[in-house]
Every structure is written in C-alpha cells, then in structure tokens.
C-alpha cells in the first residue's frame, strides 16, 4: 500500500484521505485516496457496495465529504457547486443511463454545451465534431433518444459529455445492463478517447476483464478503504496469482 503515490508524476485529479457518507456518523468511504494521471485511464475496482460509485459521486459533488480533499489541477474543488464543476473540466457519466428520453438526439447533445450556450460558434463546432465522431448519430439527429438502442444511447451520453471538452471524465459502470456485443463497443469508445484525444478517464467498473484491458493504473477498494493499487501489469499479475486467471 503506497500512500505517497503523489510522487508518481503528473496528476490532474487528486483525492486525499476522503471520508464520505450519506449519514453524519456513518462514512462509506473512510480515508480513501486516488490519483488520476493525465491522459491515462485510472480504474477503480472492488466488490459491490465498497463505495466505488460513492467515490465518483463525491468527486462530482453529489455528496459532500465529511473530511478530506479533492483537487483538480492542484486546486481544491470542494467549494464548487455540482453544476459548476463541469466548467472546471470535469465530466461525469453516471451508472444509470442519464439521457433526456423525450428530446431529440441533437437537443441532447447540444444540452451538453449548456455552460457555453451563448457561444453559438463553439456550439456548432462541437456538435459537428461529435457527429463526426459518431456518424450514426448524425443520421438520427431528429429522433427522440428514447427510441434508440442502448448502445446508441450511451453514445449520445458520451457525445453530450464531450461537448465541454472535459479534461477528466468520470465513468461509472458504463456497460451495466448492456448486451455483450455492445460492451466491447463502449470500451472501444473509451480507449479511443484516451488514445486519440488524450482525455483522462476515471473508470469504476465491475467488468474486471474489460476494465483491466483498457486500464493504465488500478485501485482496488475494500469496504471503504484502499486495498491495493498499482500499474495495471502489476495488478494483473497479482490477480493471476490469486485467482488463476
């Protein structure tokens, strides 16, 4: 267990000694730390209910920590309200599909640019970028999102998230409830984001195989505390030892 991971290099998102809970005396996370390196996929693994999602919610501001610090680019963001955090270059894709079912694809994606809605030029440019990234969405731009398939809905969600050009994307179990074929597609999208656009991704997942395949650095949580961490190769080696995979 290494507590001075801060020495490792160029960190964009730093979480230190975090205590978070839904109830004042009952902390789900008890002194968790997490550091995400720029341009890398940092994956957080752990069993059900150890607080992985809680960590992401805390980072994005849905929950306020009782203690600890969260820094983005070296600055604490604890006092920034949730809906302002997106302007700091942070983005969040929740576990449940978070799209606007009755609005069209185009409107959904445009809403991603809510924070710079008065900048018509930039909106148009980003929309165009997204349609190039996901050509299928251009075809269905006028359709209500509710009518699309699950994978396409994730695509819309991702496109919307990318409107703001976030530096860090927090992704919470992106493939929960998706068909097997689609899962591969989604992970490919995440990989592309890192490789082609240099995004920093914090990925929380249950799908260990897929997640490890694209991860760069791995944290494993156990009951609200850090258990192990390390570059993906080390972790895979450890896991192989432990589980014979």
């Amino acid at each position, binding site marked *: 267990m290494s507590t001075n991971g801060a020495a490792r290099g160029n960190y964009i998102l730093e979480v230190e000694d975090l205590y978070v809970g839904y*109830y004042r005396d009952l902390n789900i996370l008890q002194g968790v730390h997490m550091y995400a390196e720029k341009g890398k996929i940092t994956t957080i693994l752990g069993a059900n209910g150890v607080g992985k999602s809680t960590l992401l919610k805390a980072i994005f501001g849905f929950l*306020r920590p009782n203690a600890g610090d969260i820094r983005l680019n070296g600055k604490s963001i604890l006092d920034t*309200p*949730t809906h302002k955090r997106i302007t700091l270059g942070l983005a969040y894709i929740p576990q449940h599909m978070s799209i606007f079912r009755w609005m069209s694809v185009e409107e959904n994606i445009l809403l991603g640019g809510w924070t710079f809605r008065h900048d018509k030029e930039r909106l148009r440019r980003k929309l165009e970028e997204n349609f190039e990234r996901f050509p299928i969405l251009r075809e269905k731009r006028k359709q209500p999102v509710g009518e699309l398939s699950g994978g396409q809905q994730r695509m819309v969600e991702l496109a919307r998230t990318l409107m703001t050009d976030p530096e860090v994307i927090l992704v919470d179990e992106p493939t929960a409830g998706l068909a097997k074929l689609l899962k591969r597609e989604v992970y490919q999208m995440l990989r592309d984001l890192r490789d082609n656009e240099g995004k920093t991704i914090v990925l929380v997942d249950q799908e260990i195989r897929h997640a490890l395949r694209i991860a760069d650095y791995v944290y494993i949580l156990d009951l609200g505390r850090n258990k192990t961490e390390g570059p993906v190769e080390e972790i895979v080696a450890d896991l192989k030892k432990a589980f014979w995979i």
Partner: protein
Amino acid sequence: MKFRRIYILWALTALFLVGLIFYPRLVNLQPYWVLVGMTALFYAILASSWSLLAGYTGQFSFAHMAFMGLGTYAAGILIRDMGFAPWQATIGGVLITGVVGLIIGYLCLRLRAVYLALFTIAFAEIFRLVVKAEVKFTGGPNGLELPTYTFPGWLQNLLRTIVPFWDANVYIPAYYTMAFLFVAALLFMFLLVRSRFGIFFRAVREDEEAAAALGVHVVNTRVLAFVVSSMIAGFAGIVFHHFIGLIVPDQMQIGRMSLIIAMAVIGGSQNLIGAALGAIFIHFSLEWLQQIPLPTAVLQHLLFLNDWGFSVDLHAGVLRTNAWRMVGFGLLLMLTLRFWQNGLISPIIDWLARREAVESVAQRFQAERDMDAVDDVQAIGSQAEAGNPQEPTS
C-alpha cells in the same frame, strides 16, 4: 422507585380525562361553551381518524368530511323514508359509510399518494354537488333534518344520578355522548394501531413492496384503515348532527376539510392523540379569536388601512378577525409543516412516552431509510447545489 417520564404522561392523561368529564362544570354549564366543547370533540374525532388514515398509512384522503356527511345523510334518509328509530339509523348509517368506504378504498388502491388525494377530492366534490342538486331526495341546500336522540328511561335515570346537572341544558347530554364517543373512538384507534395492524399500517406506508414481501396483505391493510377511519367519521357525524338537528351540504366543503387537515397537522398527524388535541386547541382558539380587543390607539391606526383598499373590520374597540384568524392558522400550518413536521403536540407526547430501547431502534431505522432516500434519483439530482453537507433529518 426511579422517576420516569412516562409518569408525567399518565398524570397528564388523567388530568385530561378528568378535565373532559368536568368540562361542563368548569365552564359553569354555560350552554354556549358546552356546545363549543361538544363541537371541538366532534372535530377532534374527525382529525384523529383522519390522522389514522394519513399519518399511519400515508393515504391522503380529502373525502373525510364527505364520509362524515355520507353517514349522516344515510341515517337521516333511513329515518325519514324507512321509519328507522334514531339509534337504528345510527347503526345503519355507520354500516353504509363502511360499505361505501370499502368500495372507494378498493378503487383507490392502486393510486399513489397524489392521485389518491385528487381522487378523493373528486369524490368529495361529486358527492357534495349531487347532494345539493338532488333536492327531492336529500333536501338539497336546505339540509336534512334529523331528530334528536331519546335515551331509554332507565339510562336517563342512571345518567341523572351520575351527572347531577344532566338536565341543566340541552347540550349536556349531547356533550357527554360526544365525550363518550371521543374516548371510545380514540381508545379503539389506539388499540388498533398498537395491535398487529398498526405495524402493518406503518410497514405499508414506509415501503409497500417490502411489506408485501414480509407477508403483510397490503390491499387489506390499506382498505381496512380506509374503512375504519371513514366509519368513525360517519359515526361522529351522525351523532353530532342528531344533536344539532340538521345537516347541510356546505358542511362538506373542501374548506371545512382543510380545517380538519390543519387541525391534524398542527397537532401532529403521526399521532392520534396529537391530532385530537390539535383539533380541540384550534377549535377553541378559533372561537376565542373571533374578536381581539386592542387598545384604541392601535385601532385608530388600523382604520387608515381601509382607505388603501383593505377591509379592516372594527367595532366598539374590538378588531373582528374573521379572515385574519384563519390567515394566522394558514401560516401556522405552513410553518408547522416546514419546521416541525411531526406537529406541535405529538413530539411532546412522543418524548414523554419514549423509552430507551425504542429510541435506538427508531434511530437506526431512520438512518437506514435516509440512506435509501439519498440513493433516490431525485435526491441525487437535488444535491447538485452541494452547498450543504447532508444533514441528518431525524
């Protein structure tokens, strides 16, 4: 022997019962105040039976007054058209209320809290309008007359010996009948919520599916609460209006219903006794607050408001507060809801009645519920402001 808070509660209960019994004496047998007391008890029964429905099972019925009227009209029509004696009609009226309550209860089963509120408003209004329109059958807006009860001779004599001032004025028998009904109804509801059913009620309210999984028959439990509380309302209405002699459809207006709700909420809708005490408190306050004596200097200043289009109603050094007293209660209702959700009276009762073991279980239960609540999508969305740390809500 160690002093326990519960003793205070018992002392207060005894004091209240003694006060209830001696009330006509306390007000010097003045017919007006005896009548006010009787009416207060009537509202207390309605408020506490409404709290059985709303506070215990979470069904917000706005048709409580309508059920009260339904029973009374049924009894009145049984007497008028079928030649029933008043006491027979009372039983008949209560049974009819029960049957209609059963039907409405079943119809409303699948409805969420808001839809149920809307449905019961619709039912209450339809019933009131129909009663008003069917002049030939119900007497329409003129109301339906009901004969007063006559006690059998032996009972009359017995009551006379127990209550020496039985014949002092016509409202004394009415008051004691109502008081008896009040105690009986509260006792009955109290026993009901302390029994197995009480736990069912709460379970259904907190989480229907979980309750069903535990083997609670959700349908029957909800309907039972609906029927019981409607029947109690009907019973109270029948008895009260037999003594008053007349029921008019305006008695069932939504405005009257909102008064009952205000009474229950300010007293504490989670607690039968709290709701009843709230009703008594509010009814007496409303009577007292009809006019407020103010210093003449203040009154003179108030009169200037009339030039600005206000209607300040003054007479002989007294401010008439017909509208403004209700404004006060409306404000009290909203503040109570916002800051003391359990009402103003019931927390005191709870504090007195609470024992250590119960307390910790309740707290843990609360904690678990709060966690669930936060996972809820809505709660998450609303955390967006992230201004405040999650406050414990207990």
